[in-house]
C-alpha cells in the first residue's frame, strides 16, 4: 500500500490504484418571499398545522396558480450573480407523482426550459487555492408539504404549510472533485444568496438543502455510475456523506461489483449512506408544460434593471477590501464569506485602522463568539462598539492589554467601551507629571536597585518600568514611562 497521508482530498487509495471522486450538487434554496410561489398564503416557518394553506395549496377542485413576481426576480438575480445565462422565455412543467404531501398530484417545476441556464462561480478552498465550478441550470419549483410519521402507530399526519413554498434548484455541473470542494461550493452559493437577499441560507431550518450526486473513477476514465444522496442539510454532513459514499463505491468496485444507480439517504448517526427503503417502481414523472400557466417571458431591459440593482458580490468586495483597508487577501476572504461579516467590518473599520479592526474582528470577536457558542447575529458587541474600541486603542486612550480587558467586559455587559473605560477608570495615563509622581515613588522605594542600575546593571531598567506600570494598575502609557524613566535615571 502507498502512503495514504499524501493523498489529495477527493482521492481514495484502493488495492487497484487511486480513485477520483466526481461530484455534482443540486442545491434547493427557499426564496425569501413573504408568500408562496403560486398562492398568496404565507411562506413563513413554524405556524400551526395547515395555517399557511390556501385553497390553491390544498389543490381544491378548480383552483389555479398565479406566479409571484418577487420569486421570479430572485431567480433572475441569482442567475446574474452566478454569471449565468438568463432565459427570457422559460416554461413551467408539471412533474407528476403521487404522495400524501403533494396535493395536486404534481409538482410545478421547470424541466426543459429553466429560467436560468449555464453559469459558473469561483470557489475558495482552504489552502488558499481557487477553483471554478460550472452551473448547469437554475429553475423555480414548488416545495412539498410535510408528513409526520411518529404521531400515530398506523397513520401519517399531513401538514401542507410548506406546500407551494418557492424554491430555486441550482444544479452544478459534475465539476467537483472532493468533499471539501463540495463544502466550499455550498458555502459560496450560500454566501451569494445571502448577499443578494434571495434566500436566508438557513440550513438548520431547511431553507437550503443539497442533493449530492457522487461517482468514482480512475483518473482519466469515463464517469462511473452515480448515486444521489438526498436532502443534506449541513455542510458537515455533505462532506461526510460524500466521503463515505465514495468509499462505499470504491469497495464495491474493487471487489468486482457494480454500482446501482439509486437514491440514498445519509444516516447522521452512523455517518454512512443507505438505500431508501421505499424503492417504488421506477419513477416516470411524465413532465409536460403546465396548461394552467403560460410561458414566463420578460424583456432584456427588465433583466438589465435587476442587474443594475445587484449589490456588490463577494469576489469584487474581497478585492475592494484589500485595496481600501490594506488588509491581507486571506483576512478579506474570511470577511466576505458572509454578508453580515462584511457589513459589520465596514462599519467598524470606517475611518479607522483597517488592519487592526480586521485583527480584532477575526481573532478576538470570532474567537469569543465561538467560545460562548454564539452565532454572529447574536454578538453582544455591535460594529459601532468594536469601532469605538479600535479608536480608543489607536488614539492611545487605552493600551492593547487594557483593550482585551475592556473587550471581555463588552462581551459580558454589552456596554460601550468608553463607558466601561470610564466606569472602571481604565484610561491610559500619559500625563508627564502624574507619571513622574509614580516614578519618584518607585525610585524612593527601591533605592538599592537604583544604585545597582547606576553602577552599570542596565538590565534593571525593565524592572523599573514594570514597577511603574504595576503602581499605575497598568494604565500608565508605557511609552511615556520609558521616556521619563530614562531621563530620571540618567
Amino acid at each position: 500500500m502507498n502512503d495514504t497521508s499524501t493523498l489529495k482530498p477527493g482521492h481514495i487509495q484502493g488495492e487497484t490504484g487511486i480513485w477520483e471522486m466526481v461530484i455534482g450538487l443540486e442545491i434547493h434554496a427557499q426564496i425569501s418571499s413573504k408568500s408562496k410561489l403560486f398562492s398568496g398564503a404565507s411562506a413563513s416557518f413554524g405556524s400551526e398545522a395547515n395555517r399557511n394553506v390556501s385553497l390553491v395549496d390544498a389543490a381544491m377542485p378548480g383552483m389555479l396558480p398565479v406566479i409571484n413576481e418577487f420569486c421570479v426576480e430572485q431567480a433572475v438575480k441569482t442567475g446574474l450573480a452566478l454569471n449565468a445565462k438568463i432565459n427570457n422565455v422559460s416554461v413551467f412543467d408539471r412533474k407528476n407523482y403521487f404522495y400524501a404531501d403533494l396535493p395536486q398530484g404534481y409538482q410545478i417545476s421547470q424541466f426543459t426550459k429553466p429560467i436560468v441556464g449555464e453559469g459558473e462561480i469561483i470557489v475558495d478552498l482552504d489552502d488558499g487555492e481557487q477553483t471554478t465550478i460550472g452551473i448547469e441550470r437554475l429553475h423555480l419549483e414548488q416545495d412539498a408539504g410535510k408528513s409526520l410519521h411518529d404521531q400515530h402507530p398506523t397513520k401519517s399526519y399531513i401538514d401542507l404549510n410548506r406546500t407551494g413554498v418557492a424554491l430555486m434548484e441550482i444544479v452544478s455541473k459534475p465539476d467537483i472533485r472532493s468533499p471539501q470542494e463540495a463544502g466550499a461550493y455550498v458555502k459560496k452559493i450560500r454566501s451569494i444568496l445571502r448577499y443578494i437577499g434571495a434566500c436566508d441560507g438557513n440550513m438548520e431550518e431547511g431553507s437550503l438543502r443539497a442533493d449530492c450526486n457522487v461517482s468514482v473513477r480512475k483518473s482519466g476514465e469515463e464517469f462511473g455510475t452515480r448515486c444521489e444522496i438526498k436532502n443534506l442539510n449541513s455542510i458537515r454532513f455533505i462532506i461526510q456523506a460524500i466521503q463515505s459514499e465514495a468509499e462505499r463505491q470504491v469497495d464495491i468496485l474493487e471487489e468486482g461489483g457494480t454500482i446501482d444507480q439509486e437514491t440514498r439517504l445519509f444516516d447522521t448517526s452512523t455517518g454512512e449512506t443507505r438505500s431508501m427503503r421505499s424503492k417504488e417502481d421506477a419513477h416516470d414523472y411524465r413532465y409536460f408544460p403546465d396548461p394552467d400557466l403560460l410561458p414566463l417571458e420578460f424583456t432584456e431591459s427588465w433583466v438589465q434593471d435587476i442587474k443594475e440593482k445587484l449589490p456588490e458580490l463577494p469576489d469584487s468586495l474581497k478585492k475592494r477590501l484589500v485595496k481600501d483597508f490594506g488588509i491581507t487577501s486571506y483576512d478579506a476572504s474570511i470577511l466576505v464569506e458572509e454578508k453580515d461579516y462584511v457589513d459589520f467590518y465596514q462599519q467598524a473599520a470606517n475611518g479607522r485602522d483597517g488592519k487592526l479592526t480586521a485583527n480584532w474582528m477575526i481573532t478576538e470577536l470570532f474567537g469569543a463568539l465561538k467560545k460562548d457558542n454564539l452565532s454572529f447575529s447574536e454578538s453582544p458587541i455591535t460594529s459601532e462598539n468594536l469601532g469605538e474600541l479600535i479608536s480608543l486603542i489607536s488614539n492611545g486612550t487605552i493600551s492593547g492589554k487594557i483593550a482585551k480587558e475592556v473587550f471581555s467586559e463588552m462581551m459580558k455587559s454589552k456596554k460601550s467601551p468608553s463607558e466601561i473605560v470610564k466606569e472602571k477608570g481604565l484610561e491610559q495615563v500619559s500625563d508627564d507629571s502624574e507619571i513622574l509622581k509614580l516614578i519618584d515613588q518607585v525610585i524612593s522605594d527601591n533605592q538599592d536597585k537604583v544604585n545597582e542600575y547606576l553602577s552599570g546593571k542596565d538590565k534593571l531598567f525593565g524592572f523599573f518600568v514594570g514597577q511603574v506600570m504595576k503602581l499605575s494598575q497598568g494604565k500608565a502609557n508605557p511609552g511615556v514611562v520609558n521616556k521619563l524613566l530614562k531621563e530620571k535615571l540618567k
Partner: protein
Amino acid sequence: MSELLDFNLVEASKALKNKEISSLELTKAYLKSISDTSSLGAYLEIVEVKAISMAKESDKKLIDGTARPLEGIPIGIKDMFCTKNIKTTASSKILENFIPTYESTVTQNLWNDGAVILGKLSCDEFAMGSSNETAAKGNVINPWLKNKKMSPGGSSGGSAAAVAARSALAATGTDTGGSIRQPAAFCGITGLKPTYGRCSRWGIVAFSSSLDQAGPLTRTVSDAALMLNSMAGYDQKDSTSANLKMPDLMDYLDKGIKGKKIGIPKEYTQDGISEDIVKFYEKSIGWLRDEGAEIIPVSLPHTKYALPAYYIIAPAEASSNLARYDGVRYGARQEASSLDEMYELTRGNGFGDEVKRRIMIGTYVLSSGYYDAYYLKAQKVRRLIKEDFENVYKKVDYILTPSTPTTSFELGKKQDPLTMYLNDIFTVPASLAGLPGISLPVGLDKSGLPIGIQLIANSFDEAGLISTARVLEMSAGFNFIADGAAK
C-alpha cells in the same frame, strides 16, 4: 303558469323590469317545471330555499330600481362549477359528498348580476363524454322524442336538457371539445363556447386546462349574448384569462351580415354525415347568402387530425388534473392499510370507466418513451390546426359548419368509446384553436330531432359571432318545443 315558461330570457328580463311579472313567480314556475320534468334526470341538486330567497332579493331590487342585468332570472348550473355550500360533484362518485367553500368566478359573476340559482345540472363525469351517459347518477334524457329516451348529448347534457325542457331559463356549460355545442345541437337550443380565456376557469373543476371554457346554453342567440355579458371577464386568479374587455354583446344583435364573408370548409361534409344535416347546412348557406353575406369555399386541411390530436392532449391534461382526487383532502376515500392501496382503491372505485380510460390514455401518452410520439406530436398538429384557421381568417370573417355529423341517438346505443368520440368531430377543431363557436337550431330531421349548425369566429370576436348567429336564427325561424318540455 305556462305563460311564464314561454318567455325567453330577454323577454322575461323585460317583463321583470316592467314589473309585469315577479322573480318569485317566475322562479316558482321553474321550480315546478323542474319537478314536472324530473324524469329527465337533468338536475343533480335542487336548491329551492336558496332560489326562493334569491328571487325575493331580486324582486326588491326590481322594485327599488336597482335591478342588475340578469335580475331575477332563474338558471341552472352545470355541476362542473364549484358553488359555495352547494354540493358539487362533477357527476362523479369520487366527489359525491364534496361541498365547496368557495364560488367559481363565472357563477359569482352571474349572482353579482342578479341571476337566481335553481340547482346543479348533471353532466358527463368530469365532463368526459358526448352523451351524458358517464354521469355517476345515471343518464339524462333528451326532452325531444321523450319516449324513445334519446341522448341529450354531452358533456353539458343536463344543461341542454333543462333549457330544452324549460326547467331552466338558461344554463351554464363547459366546453372542452364540444361539450356546449354538441348537446345544444342535440336538444334544439343555442350553445356558445367563447374564445379560450374569455371566461375565467377559476373554480371550475378542471378537465383539460388548455381547452376548457365556460359558456351559456340558452333558448336564443340574444339570450346567449345576455348570459355571456355577465359570465365573461378578466380574472387575476386565472393566469390564462384574457385581459381584454368584451363589448356589450346586446349592441351587436342586429348588426346584420351584409358584405361579410362566410367560409365553407370542404372538409366538413364528409362520409357519415346525415343527409338531413347536409340539407339544412345547405339551406343555412343559402339563408346567409340571401342576407347579403358572401359565401367563400375554404379549406382547413388538417381537420381530419383534430380529433386524434384532441384525444391525446385532453386525456394527457386530464390524467394530471385528476391526480388531486386521491381521497386525502376531500372526496370519497376507500379505507386501506397503506397509502398506495388507499389511492388505488379510492380512484379505482371513485372514477367511472370512461374517466379511467382517459386517465390511462393520458398517462400512457405522457410516459417515458412515448411523449414525443404522442403528446409532442399532437401539440405540433395542434399548431397546424390553429394555422389552418389563421390562414382562412385572412380571407373570411366567419366559418359555417354543421355542429354534429348526426342528430341525437338513443341512450345505450353507442357502446364503443371510439364511435362516441366521433360525435365531436366538427366541434373539436375550434376548441384546439381556442376559437369562439356557437351552435344554434335550424330545423328538425325526418324523425323530428333538432339539427344544429355551428358558426366559428376569429379569436375574441364574440360580437361578430352573435350578429351572424342572430341572422341565421331569424332566417331559420326555429320555433319548435320539445315534446318532453314542461307545459
